[in-house]
């Protein structure tokens, strides 16, 4: 299950999962595969406001450093602190332990504008 059906996706290879009014955000299986071994993840501070499409951090691998973009607008309510010591979780478990941030959505209807699993799969395959 490389692209779970219950997630929504962006063209920039992020995913978002709705949990109540919050959205948990990470990068996709395709993104982690393209990046190669992740060695560092730069995350925002809790409380920061992000706009949809805006860079909120960066993922550094042995190949390159890539910005990660917010799929929706809102306030960052949690970041995955565990990645500081274990950035390899982004490779091992991109939809689970490798999550990046949680966002309180300004407008939950923004989700509808994102890609479905099927649309995202068509984009990367």
């Amino acid at each position: 299950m490389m692209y779970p059906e219950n997630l929504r996706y962006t063209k920039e290879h992020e995913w978002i999962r709705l949990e109540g009014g919050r959205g948990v955000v990470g990068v996709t299986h395709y993104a982690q595969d393209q990046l190669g071994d992740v060695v560092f993840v730069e995350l925002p501070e809790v409380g920061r406001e992000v706009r949809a499409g805006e860079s909120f951090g960066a993922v550094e691998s042995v190949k390159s450093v890539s910005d990660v973009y917010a799929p929706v607008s809102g306030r960052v309510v949690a970041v995955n602190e565990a990645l500081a010591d274990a950035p390899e979780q982004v490779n091992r478990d991109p939809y689970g332990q490798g999550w990046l941030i949680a966002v309180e959505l300004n407008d939950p209807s923004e989700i509808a504008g994102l890609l479905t699993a099927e649309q995202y799969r068509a984009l990367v395959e």
Partner: protein
Amino acid sequence: MSEPLIFELGAPGRTSSYMPDCDVPGRPPEELVPADLLRKRPPEFPEVGEREAAGHFTRLSSLNYGVDTGFYPLGSCTMKYNPKINEYAARLPGFARLHPYQPEDQAQGALRLMYETQGYLAEITGMDQFTLQPAAGAHGEFTGLLMIKAYHDHRGDTGRRKVIVSDSSHGTNPATAALCGLEVLQIRSGRDGTVDMEALGEALGDDTAAVMLTNPNTLGLFEKEILEIAGAVHRAGAMLYCDGANMNAVMGISRPGDMGFDVIHLNLHKTFSTPHGGGGPGSGPVGVKSHLAPFLPSPVVRLNPDSGIYFFDYDRPLSIGKVRAFYGNFGVVVRAYAYIRAVGGEGLREASENAVINANYLLSLLKGKYRVPFDRHCMHEFVVAPPAGFRESGLHTVDIAKRLMDYGYHPPTVYFPLIVEEALMVEPTETESKATLDDFARAMLEIAREGLESPGLLRDAPVSTPVSRLDEVSAARRPRLRWQPPGAAE
């Protein structure tokens, strides 16, 4: 690697210097230095004789690979051969032993060389004025954007806080904008790998400070619509910045100033044949059109036409200030001057022509086997991707690069530009012969065959280098940056 660290050589008490006896009364350090600043135990210096030290460093130097040793096709880096006459010129005592505080009347030769270099660079690029201060390319970008910011602010146009970059840009472009406190807006390249006019048009606005472009771009493709691009940028009230890293493709043929660029930085250490990488410091002169000249870093080298005397002009009230101690990496400027004077205008044009011909020739040799994302004539460099079938064998660009070392080559740039998956970016430069290009192409084609027939050869490469494949993840995450004596806590 068989060569130990210098700390692991020698023996206690061994030395190669013999100090004369102290001829003033000695006093114990405790009387001279506060107790809390005294170290508890002596430092762990290597203890080796001169014979051992010379042997150690000579053996290490023989492991080095550089442009003097072999082919070095590192894309976007222009690793051309640097003629030794440049080194001779830079070592002339009148240049090498100048003190930066030497009075102007005792350094007229050096000032003239700087003045003339500014003029040559302006002529080559089609700009009006130059500064030689910035220490390298990214520093030049920083200088250029600060001037653009100062220009807008000076006109009272203070709302321009966005810098537009292409998704194929050098990483230094967005990094520079961010360092200048500006917001980065990245636009997608069009299908043909060049700027998408529609995307640019949508991104431009009255909040745009500058658009940063490289021409030819990092895919080795010339931006054919550059005049239309410049028009659109200027109509929006923004400045057009030229990342001159790829100037080696167009010297004497086309000029960024004529294309409509307002600012350009050059990399003397790339285009103008001075050592770089491990070989020496860089130099990133910045040229501007006259409307930006008042903002150039202070001082600027000028000539008093009446007296014929060269001088530093510090009287520049709108200057962004100094960006580098003294006047930049002067020794590098001497080398570039020697190069420009040695080859002349015709020679520079010929260098660019041969750089473009060499790249197209090499591309044509690789084209059948390696995938070509943008199939058109390239400029001085090109981008290819691994042959069909590599992905299925679990092979990546990095494996091709590592295997090239076994064939005795420095690998090309890999995984850049970011918009090409598994990119391999090759810049042969004009200083290589057809025989070298043929040999390199043969190695590349051999590797293409090996990858399909015995992928293990690539996966285990390199096997013939002093060290084999490095653990890059551990190197990035748990670097050991300091030697510790055996048994010491990490």
